[in-house]
């Protein structure tokens, strides 16, 4: 037990420290970055389970109220990447309507916020991660990087 404790501790600590950082994998295809960040930031593949990504990429012509249809070769290249890095925990990282913002993980992370927080003029939509997370585009969602109202909320706790 003595010998395993430090290992356990390190593993736990590493998990906690990693929970709010989703580094962009170095083999991310350029087409993923350019296409998926056209209308919103390119959401980290780690935030949705693999089957959920498959479903999403299969219905881009009806993409949450927008037609985001791509050439089949581009869909294939992006999906291959999403399947390499997509979450394996389907319970925490999928939702009935396919939105990241309605996964258990997301809801838990934002449970302290009133629903109205996402509808302010500055934020506009729950899709707009970068409105509160200064380094969202780099895949970093640390609390100390929070901006504006979200930062005030964090401080008032």
């Amino acid at each position: 037990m003595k010998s395993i404790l430090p290992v356990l501790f390190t593993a736990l600590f590493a998990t906690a420290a990693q929970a709010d950082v989703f580094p962009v994998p170095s083999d991310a295809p350029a087409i993923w970055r350019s296409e998926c960040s056209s209308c919103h930031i390119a959401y980290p593949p780690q935030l949705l389970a693999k089957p959920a990504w498959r479903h999403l990429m299969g219905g881009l012509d009806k993409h949450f109220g927008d037609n985001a249809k791509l050439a089949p070769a581009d869909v294939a290249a992006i999906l291959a990447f999403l399947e390499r890095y997509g979450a394996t925990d389907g319970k925490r990282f999928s939702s009935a309507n396919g939105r990241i913002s309605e996964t258990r993980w997301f809801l838990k992370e934002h449970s302290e916020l009133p629903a109205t927080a996402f509808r302010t003029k500055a934020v506009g939509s729950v899709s707009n991660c970068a409105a509160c997370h200064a380094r969202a585009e780099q895949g970093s969602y640390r609390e100390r990087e929070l901006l504006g109202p979200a930062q005030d909320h964090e401080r008032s706790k």
Partner: protein
Amino acid sequence: MRPSQIALLFLLYTGTAPAETPAAIEAAYAAQAGTDFHASAVRGRIFFTARRTASPAFDACTACHTDSPEQAGRHAITGRVIAPMSPRLTLSRFSDQAKVEKWFHRNCREVVGRECSAGEKADVLAYLGGNSR
């Protein structure tokens, strides 16, 4: 000889796309629209600001791009900031013909409910780019 004809000849002569500048991309669309066509910034503004019914979330080009090419816009659904359409403020704007065509294709179907004509594209570029009268 008209500018659009010159552009067309240039295209025929070189056999490749012209230098990808806002003016050249506009000229290529104008040439495509016909020999008698002249791009109009006034028509472009009317087209760009017209209220439409094809998509409830995007009821005009201005729903995301604002009614000023000099102002930053926001995606009407996601809230993502969109850099000003004016190439004077956003230097990379209209500098890649394929990208311009991709967005016309995508946004015309979404907002207008059909493909835009070459003339409409030339007009919009004349308005946003400020190259034509």
